[in-house]
């Protein structure tokens, strides 16, 4: 197991432990995006955990805010806040809620949770960085279910029209909402809206990194990341029952063993 895989497993243990303590959390969604987040924060984003509000930093927005545990685990690992915060997840006075809030959590750029807000906010940030002549890049991570929302496609129109080539949208395509509304060929949809696109294996770090580099002048970039909801935990993978559920003590022991 390489360094990144070891860290990913450790973060997954942190996530299930925090969720079990809180009796709350969207663990499977967090596992679906954890590899994407780690590649971004470890290899791509120009950010400084000691100066999280630095003006020209790159920005990341977790548009599918319910996967907050994944973001918190990565931010914690990168030093934005101490591990005690993660273990107090969703407590009454905790800064870390079930959905992330920008005024409470260092490194969180937007308060998300209601789906369809993060990508258009990211487009505004990208436009703002261009107006301010900053070289900063803006990344947003949406879910395939979230792509049901009309505001996602409004933002897709805006980003292409305004040539926001400093904007990257990662789509966590785990097919968990196909049962409601199948999004079909997401890559073709973004391409039709005028975006540069790239499909990647959302659990292969080198593939993700390659995809993030496939930018094009004058076009926003959409990464369609093929993922498995609940990745790495057999009882959870692609199981709708685990969308919003915390493990009981026995399940936690079993999960920690599987993730050890």
């Amino acid at each position: 197991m390489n360094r990144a895989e070891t860290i990913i497993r450790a973060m997954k243990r942190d996530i299930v432990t925090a969720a079990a303590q809180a009796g709350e959390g969207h663990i499977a969604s967090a596992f679906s995006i954890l590899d994407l987040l780690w590649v971004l924060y470890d290899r791509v984003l120009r950010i400084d955990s000691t100066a999280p509000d630095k003006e020209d930093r790159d920005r990341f927005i977790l548009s599918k805010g319910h996967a907050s545990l994944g973001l918190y685990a990565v931010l914690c690992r990168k030093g934005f806040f101490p591990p005690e915060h993660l273990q107090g997840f969703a407590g009454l006075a905790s800064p870390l809620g079930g959905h992330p809030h920008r005024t409470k959590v260092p490194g969180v750029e937007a308060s998300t949770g209601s789906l369809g807000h993060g990508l258009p906010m990211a487009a505004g940030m990208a436009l703002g960085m261009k107006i301010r002549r900053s070289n900063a890049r803006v990344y947003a991570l949406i879910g395939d279910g979230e792509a049901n929302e009309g505001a996602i496609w409004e933002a897709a129109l805006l980003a292409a029209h305004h040539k926001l080539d400093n904007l990257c949208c990662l789509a966590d395509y785990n097919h968990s909402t196909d049962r409601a509304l199948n999004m079909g060929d997401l890559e073709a949809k973004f391409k039709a809206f005028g975006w540069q696109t790239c499909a990647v294996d959302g659990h292969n770090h080198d593939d993700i990194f390659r995809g993030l580099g496939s930018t094009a002048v004058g076009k926003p970039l959409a990464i369609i990341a093929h993922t498995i909801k609940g990745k790495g935990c057999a009882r959870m993978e692609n199981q709708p029952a685990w969308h919003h559920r915390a493990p009981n003590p026995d399940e936690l022991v079993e999960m920690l063993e599987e993730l050890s």
Partner: protein
Amino acid sequence: MNMRGQLVATVEALMQEDERLVTLLGDIGVFGFRKAFEQFPERIYNIGILEQATISLAAGLASTGLVPVVHTIAPFLVERALEQLKIDFCYQRLGGNFISVGGSYDYAALGCTHHCPADVILLRTLPGMEIVVPGTANEFDSLFRQSWANGNPTYFRLSESQNPVSFEQHFGKATVVQTGSKATVVVVGPLLGTVMEAVEGHDITVLYYTCLAPFDGETLRQHCSSNRILLCEPYYSGTLLQELHNALGPRPLTIDTVGMPREFLEQYGHRQQHDQALGFTAEAIRRKLEPLCQ
């Protein structure tokens, strides 16, 4: 100058003065802002007809230190994009300016899809949202200049009708237009002219509100010894009743209201015809005042 013309003049002047101001038009007012499009092509956009993403995008701009001004028609700005205003601006505590036209039935002939009598009452539910209803173009200019970059989300409701006289404006403060002993009229924005006709020669206090949130309860407390109030609002009737209660506390009050009924106005015609039918006239207001003053 009407309020729309003043909007262009004020915003263009401020864009000249301050590079943080970015204007987003929902495909209205584009010709009016033609000078700004020539002078500041990177800071003014005809953003299109997609209000939800526009408000979120404006929040993104705000988070980078810019100050957005979003301008479009009231029902689409407020009702369609209400959740974006709530979360992206109010919950995130970001500053921005939202300027509507077409409040209430200013677009009477276009029918109920383009009416918006609910904008103020809806926005009153959003913690942190400031609400401004100027009564004249000059008052808009003053209130906007005082507040546009104050770091809060602020809604400005521009109207087709204006009062004949402007009052000096202090953001968040009501104006005591006249004092009397029989009753207090609390009047909002462009209704003041009609109210002043109605109260002519009467021993009545008139308090003029252009800033509804924050609401100046102190001025009301100091000028309501009669405990009789006529609340005159150019949108849904009784929208500010909770503010009156908050200001005056639990004591017996006699209150009547002038405002729009909570029903669709299914006829078309001109704004002035609806004014007559709904009682936004000096005569109708006087009729409401008579029993209050006895």
